[in-house]
């Protein structure tokens, strides 16, 4: 048994953790598609999908089977390599961001000291999925959707990074574990309320969820950038959106709501409850808000959110200097 060293055990344990987080994120994203439809149904006073299995829980399996066996058609006028690449970027970039999220004190994939910057980098790369997918489809509606998406994402990424810098300043670190530990006494939602508000808005915009789904507005653009996609490629865009929802919810919990901290219950349960709450909030937003006009979305980002984050950062710095010095 000389090959069974503590190093090997640590490596295997790390791989096991990574695998569980990966599968958990994907399965949760997939399950959310059904949960969302059921919840939308309940809130709109109808049943939603309730035929397959008890309470419609088998709908997920039915949907997966259908999407696996659908014809995966690539239009002849499409740019083949980029058309194939785009859904991979959409799915992988958001999934990779899960490595920085600390779930419990002993559970988490990577403990990078640039943690938060890694998420911002992956969010930056995620833009290309929409852009390249829309362009490679060779369809004018897809291209219009992609152009809208790129302009919107650029506008919202600017203040997404800035909204998080208040948290970084308070915790004194980009490392997610340090940020969670710094919230032991007081969750950052209280000193950083404006940071939370702007990050939540930016997070919704980055995942292209309602009310920021201009890139895929059904009425004007007939589904936008993924109009030519079918089968599993569409599935990757689709599940990628829900994985993004899970990611943004988990990030909000980690950055502003104390991560695993909470009384009585074990850390993993606290993390799950808080993340679930924000996932429900995402779905409730979709159920209740109409889609604003595109130019209003852009001017709201630049003229309200960006100045707000800058003032927030300035005030945070001033208060920290006053209190600390």
């Amino acid at each position, binding site marked *: 048994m000389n090959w069974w060293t503590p190093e090997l055990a640590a490596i295997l344990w790390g791989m096991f953790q990574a695998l569980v987080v990966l599968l958990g994120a994907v399965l949760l994203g997939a399950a959310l598609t059904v949960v969302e439809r059921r919840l939308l149904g309940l809130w709109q006073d109808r049943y939603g999908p309730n035929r397959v299995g008890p309470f419609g829980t088998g709908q997920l399996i039915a949907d997966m089977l259908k999407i696996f066996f659908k014809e995966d058609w690539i239009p002849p006028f499409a740019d083949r390599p980029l058309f194939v690449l785009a859904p991979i970027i959409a799915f992988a970039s958001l999934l990779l961001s899960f490595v920085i999220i600390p779930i419990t004190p002993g559970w988490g994939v990577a403990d990078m*000291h640039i943690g938060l*910057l890694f998420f911002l980098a992956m969010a930056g*790369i995620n833009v*290309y999925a929409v852009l390249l997918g829309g*362009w490679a489809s060779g369809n004018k509606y897809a291209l219009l959707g*992609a152009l809208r998406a790129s*302009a919107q994402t*650029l506008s919202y990424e600017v203040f997404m990074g800035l909204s998080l810098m208040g948290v970084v300043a308070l915790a004194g670190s980009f490392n997610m574990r340090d940020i969670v530990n710094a919230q032991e006494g007081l969750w950052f939602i209280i000193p950083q309320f404006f940071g939370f508000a702007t990050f939540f808005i930016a997070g919704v915009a980055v995942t292209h969820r309602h009310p920021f789904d201009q890139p895929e507005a059904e009425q004007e653009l007939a589904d936008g950038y993924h109009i030519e996609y079918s089968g599993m490629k569409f599935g990757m865009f689709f599940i990628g959106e829900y994985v993004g929802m899970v990611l943004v919810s988990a990030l909000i919990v980690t950055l502003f709501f104390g991560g695993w901290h909470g009384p009585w219950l074990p850390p993993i349960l606290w993390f799950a409850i808080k993340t679930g709450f924000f996932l429900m909030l995402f779905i409730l937003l979709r159920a209740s808000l109409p889609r604003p006009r595109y130019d209003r979305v852009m001017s709201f980002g630049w003229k309200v959110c960006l100045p707000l984050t800058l003032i927030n950062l300035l005030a945070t710095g001033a208060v920290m200097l006053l209190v600390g010095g």
Partner: protein
Amino acid sequence: MEIAFYLSGLVAVLATVGVITGTSPVHAVVYLIVSLIAVAMVFFALGAPFAGALEIIVYAGAIMVLFVFVVMMLNLRPDAERELTWTHPRHWLGPSLLALVLLGALLALLRQGGVSEVIDGELLTARAVGLTLFGPWLMVVELAAILLLAALVTASHVGRRSNPLNRKMTGNRKRGGTP
């Protein structure tokens, strides 16, 4: 860490070759993005993850999006013929000569020594970068900030939407004051 450095360096060089030799503008831009990510990986391998992350966020995530945006708006098609005239040896002569001078300078520097240091995986944290920037290099940071502010003011001046009332008045004047 050395193997990661050489691998990502190789990817960066190959992707940059792809940028130059590709005929489709969008594919060239995608190669450029890959090249930038590979350079970020080089930073990671050298033990400067902060610089690597910023490279991806700023260059690959923001600036290149604008490039892709513009290339997509122009909707250029691959044009092998025109590309061939651009890559005529005559056009390569000047840049090649200049690059040769640089290569000579690099070789001379390498011969002088100082290459014995290998990659040791020492981690350069964001805190260290910040302390250096706002310590000895504070003046440069402030100058860059002023430059960016000037650029911002200029951009907002050039891109401003003129007051519709104002435009109507100047339009009337141009037409020679018709009633």
